[in-house]
């Protein structure tokens, strides 16, 4: 941009009357400018779905899609965990086995002979993983060790601890019905509708008030019609999800309802998205990842923000561990934290998060996790081996990074 374009561009600070067309034009210019956001991953998700549906025909059934959402939960949570550290320009290789530790603590405390109630076991698991994150973060920021090395050590160390507790080839069963219901339990049909409507209503009020305040202040703001369209789109999406989940997907006995774990993942997404998008802490995470020196000169405590990033990463990994254990109704030494962490990084990157810090969203983790689960699920339906799944996941990862790199280069 230079003098030549000046005449054509709006004056900064001049109140801009924005119509739907103009606003969409601005959005389109941002996309062309390389800020593609979630478009590539959403496109990829649609492409993958169409492809698998064409090849098999079972992919887009209610039963399989709901199953897919449950499968994606662990990937989505671990990818969200990774987003926090990737935003800071760091990496956390330990999330897989930190999730394992969370699962072990949960299962250990919830055993009948130990007898902790489910909520106390969950609390203890999350406290344990949070402390692990604090330890990693402290080693990285106070001693100044590279996060790659510290969390690689974490990967090995926590795997060792997990094997030690479980014993060689050992496992701990989970008998608590509530813990198992996290992934196997579903909301009743009316509860699913009610929850969806409440969520859409709350979102609608928040978004409408925010946009209305912008419009009232003379700033460039989305026109009211667009705000309404956004809320309507969420309502349609929510209704679609509930219709899908409420359809009977049972083979022998009727099975229906939205799995609780979907609500859990969406809840974690909303909280993390709010933290990153609306709070000062989130802004500082982006600032540190974008230009640590600028952040330092602005008076931001780098060590504190970085440590908090690792704490939140491990906490989210702990939630993933609980979901993992709930799904298997046990935790055993077969947990492959090494592969999980690679999927976590891949999911975050496929979703659109940059490996170089400063660019990414919690939503990217969820969408990337969905893509990985969709490939796993779809290729499973087609009868492919694990070997083929790895290859295809790798190709998708490379495509995602390429789209990101090409989009960026054009700016």
């Amino acid at each position, binding site marked *: 941009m230079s003098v030549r374009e000046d005449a054509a561009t709006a004056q900064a600070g001049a109140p801009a009357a924005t119509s739907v067309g103009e606003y969409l034009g601005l959005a389109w210019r941002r996309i062309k400018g390389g800020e593609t956001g979630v478009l590539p991953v959403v496109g990829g998700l649609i492409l993958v779905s169409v492809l698998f549906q064409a090849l098999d025909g079972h992919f887009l059934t209610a039963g399989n899609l709901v199953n897919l959402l449950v499968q994606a939960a662990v990937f989505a949570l671990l990818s969200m965990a990774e987003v926090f550290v990737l935003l800071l320009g760091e990496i956390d290789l330990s999330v897989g086995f930190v999730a394992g530790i969370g699962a072990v603590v949960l299962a250990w405390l919830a055993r009948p002979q130990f007898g902790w109630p489910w909520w106390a076991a969950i609390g203890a698991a999350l406290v344990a993983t949070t402390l692990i994150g604090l330890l990693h973060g402290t080693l990285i920021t106070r001693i100044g060790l590279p996060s790659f090395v510290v969390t690689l050590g974490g990967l090995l160390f926590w795997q060792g601890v997990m094997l030690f507790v479980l014993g060689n080839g050992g496992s701990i069963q989970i008998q608590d019905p509530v813990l198992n219901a996290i992934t196997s339990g579903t909301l009743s049909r009316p509860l699913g509708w009610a929850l969806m409507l409440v969520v859409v209503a709350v979102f609608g009020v928040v978004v409408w008030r925010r946009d209305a305040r912008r419009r009232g202040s003379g700033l460039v703001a989305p026109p009211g019609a667009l705000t309404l369209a956004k809320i309507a789109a969420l309502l349609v999406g929510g209704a679609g999800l509930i219709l899908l989940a409420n359809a009977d997907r049972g083979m022998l006995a009727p099975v229906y309802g939205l799995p609780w774990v979907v609500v859990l993942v969406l809840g974690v997404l909303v909280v993390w998205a709010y933290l990153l998008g609306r709070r*000062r802490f989130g802004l500082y995470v982006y600032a540190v990842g974008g230009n640590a020196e600028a952040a330092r000169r602005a008076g*931001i405590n780098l060590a504190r923000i970085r440590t908090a990033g690792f704490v939140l990463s491990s906490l989210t990994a702990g939630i993933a561990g609980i979901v993992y254990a709930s799904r298997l109704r046990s935790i055993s030494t077969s947990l492959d934290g090494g592969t999980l962490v690679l999927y976590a990084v891949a999911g975050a990157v496929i979703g659109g998060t940059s490996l170089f810090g400063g660019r990414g969203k919690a939503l990217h983790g969820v969408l990337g996790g969905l893509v990985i689960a969709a490939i796993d699920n779809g290729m499973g339906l087609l009868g492919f081996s694990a070997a083929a799944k790895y290859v295809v996941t790798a190709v998708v990862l490379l495509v995602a990074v390429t789209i990101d790199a090409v989009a960026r280069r054009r700016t």
Partner: protein
Amino acid sequence: MDSGTSAPPLLSLRGVSKSFGPVQALADVDLDVPAGAVTALAGDNGAGKSTLIKCIAGIHPPDHGQMFWEGEKTRLHGPGDAAALGIQTVYQDLALCDNLDIVQNMFLGRERLRRGQLDDVSMEQAASETLSDLAVTTVRSVRQQVASLSGGQRQSVAIAKAVLWESKLVIMDEPTAALGVAQTRMVLDLVRKLVERGHAVLLISHNMTDVFQVADRVAVMRHGRMVGVRPIDQIDQRIVVDLMTTGESDREVSEQPRRDEEPRPDDDQEVPG
């Protein structure tokens, strides 16, 4: 060295010295920086310009010497102290986050909150106002990422940030070093606009053309010493070069370029009265 004025200058340094181990970076430096004027700081590489502005910005507290702010003796213990007085530094690398937008960069570290959340509307309004006050009108939207801005626009954002934070003294380190002709002019216009608004500007520049376009006073450093501070009408480019290279100049101000004299041999101890 300065022509006397009744009000104390915004900032006065007296006898400021700073050593890094055996290296004496600043030796007994005196400098006045008055409000509403551009004071250019010239000097060869290693003359101590950067160390001096870091002393003023609170990054390197001086070993010896005194600092007066609006006539009051003061001592800075960190960048926060300098910012609290109203001293803002625009560094050569600008210290902007590419991945944040203009508003976020301008408010970084001083966000406005509303019910615990970032108050985007109020910050965007204030940022837009500041930019249009400074006649920075070439940015498409204050919500665009800094990564998408040109060098001159980035410089403008960094300067506007200093203005937004109600600074009285804006220190600029080579603001035009990486800019083309049109963008250099845009930034120099912005510097004059700051001065018209009553800010003091302390400007480091290697570019003599820039210095003589915007400066009201020129201070020349050499080997950690202040070798001359003169109003712009009592100095020209050749005198600045003399001072930079030899520490003194007995030329008369002249518009005619002369090339008849050999540079004098270096003498570190020589300071003109």
